[in-house]
């Protein structure tokens, strides 16, 4: 098609007007902030755990460097990219090579996200169903199928909500200078907002209920907690199992819940705290991959 400058300008103006008319009428989900915060914390936890594992193995520098290097499909050469995927990153027109990722010890925590969603569907109580899988792509610059992390949307007896499930290796964070302390024995009281906090903090607020979980020998092995913020209730269970940690949270929010009250998709999360703990304790998560 041939355009004169006038025609082109007119066409551009028409498209601009069309976008203004249609896009400004699109309803924007409310409550994106708390959901984004949840996603960000999970991603941060997994990244820190991955980095800590690399530090602990004495291969941090090489592993981090490997994670930050992907083939530049534009030029076919190798270049460094912004780990945040920021605007300075290259955009390519061809698929990248299989991604390099920060390695941590291989184990059951590397379960493929689609398998995790299927497992959750099989474990859930009869009156709770998976409505959608949530993103199955890794939230990392390296991309690929997510391992050990899912955020499916569920519908329970009280309505829809989101489940966050993360599998992690037990990493000795204390060997990694500058990385977060994850045990309750050292450092500041952990915040309940962090997935890697294995125990209850000393200074609980009225919005937070927390119960320590103990192994048969009496040692602290995790926690189960409930946190309310406005209309949102966030239930969490964290449990160390077989060399790793299973973290799960159920929240009455749909990444921007629009079903009635702002931010809340239902009166309660789709799972109870007991059901969430049953999910975390299910042996599916600690089975080696076949």
């Amino acid at each position, binding site marked *: 098609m041939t355009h004169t400058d006038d025609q082109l300008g007119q066409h551009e103006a028409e498209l601009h007007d069309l976008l203004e008319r249609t896009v400004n009428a699109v309803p924007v989900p409310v409550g994106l902030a708390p959901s984004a915060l949840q996603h960000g914390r999970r991603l941060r936890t997994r990244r820190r755990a991955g980095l800590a594992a690399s530090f602990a193995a004495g291969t941090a520098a090489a592993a981090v460097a490997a994670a930050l290097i992907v083939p530049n499909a534009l030029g076919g050469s190798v270049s460094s990219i912004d780990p945040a995927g920021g605007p*300075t990153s290259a955009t390519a027109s061809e698929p990248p090579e299989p991604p390099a990722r920060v390695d941590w010890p291989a184990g059951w925590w590397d379960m493929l996200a689609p398998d995790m969603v299927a497992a959750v569907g099989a474990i859930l109580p009869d009156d709770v169903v998976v409505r959608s899988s949530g993103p199955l792509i890794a939230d990392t610059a390296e991309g690929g199928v997510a391992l050990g992390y899912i955020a499916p949307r569920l519908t329970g007896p009280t309505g829809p909500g989101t489940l966050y499930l993360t599998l992690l290796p037990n990493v000795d964070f204390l060997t990694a200078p500058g990385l977060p302390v994850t045990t309750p024995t050292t450092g500041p009281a952990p915040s309940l907002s962090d997935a890697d906090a294995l125990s209850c903090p000393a200074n609980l607020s009225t919005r937070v209920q927390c119960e320590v979980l103990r192994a048969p020998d009496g040692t602290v092995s995790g926690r189960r907690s409930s946190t309310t913020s406005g209309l949102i209730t966030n239930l969490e269970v964290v449990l160390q199992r077989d060399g790793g940690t299973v973290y799960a949270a159920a929240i009455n929010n749909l990444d921007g819940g629009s079903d009635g009250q702002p931010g809340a998709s239902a009166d309660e999360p789709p799972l109870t705290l007991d059901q969430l703990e049953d999910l975390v304790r299910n042996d599916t998560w600690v089975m080696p991959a076949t």
Partner: protein
Amino acid sequence: MRDSPPIDEDFTAFVAARSPALYRSAWLLTTSAPAAEDLVQSALAKAYVHWRRVQAADDPAAYVHGIVLKTFLSNRRRRSSGEIPVDAPPDRPSSDRDPTERLALMAALRTLPPLDRAVVVLRYWEDRSVDETAHTLRLSPAAVKNRSLRALARLRLTLIDPELLELASTEARHDSHG
């Protein structure tokens, strides 16, 4: 040490202020509400992890918009590992009085390659210049102009296709009754 609370506060304030613009750009890129939400969530999670860097940027909003674009283009290259629809997405009330035009636009945008769609969003929704678009997408200005022309022509052809408009009208009627 853990991140101090102000990070969460700053991040939450940023999301509250910028999420409408981010979501609408994501909606144009993905052409679907659930995919737009997932894209914005993924991009914001990355922004949160690197929040200090976002804050240090000359234009933090543009920086996060760039993350949205990068995430979109990366995800499009990995379609095989994308979302698995398990059930119908949750219903979402729409404020559209007449969604026909919106649905037609969505259908038209879907006919564009992802990179061309990104060019359209930057040039005609975010009002970026050719040079800014070229810089963001790591293309030459000539390539941006070429893709803009191609996308404009494609959109015009598609939007005046009566069959497509009829399809959009059918979808709109279905939506209004569903």
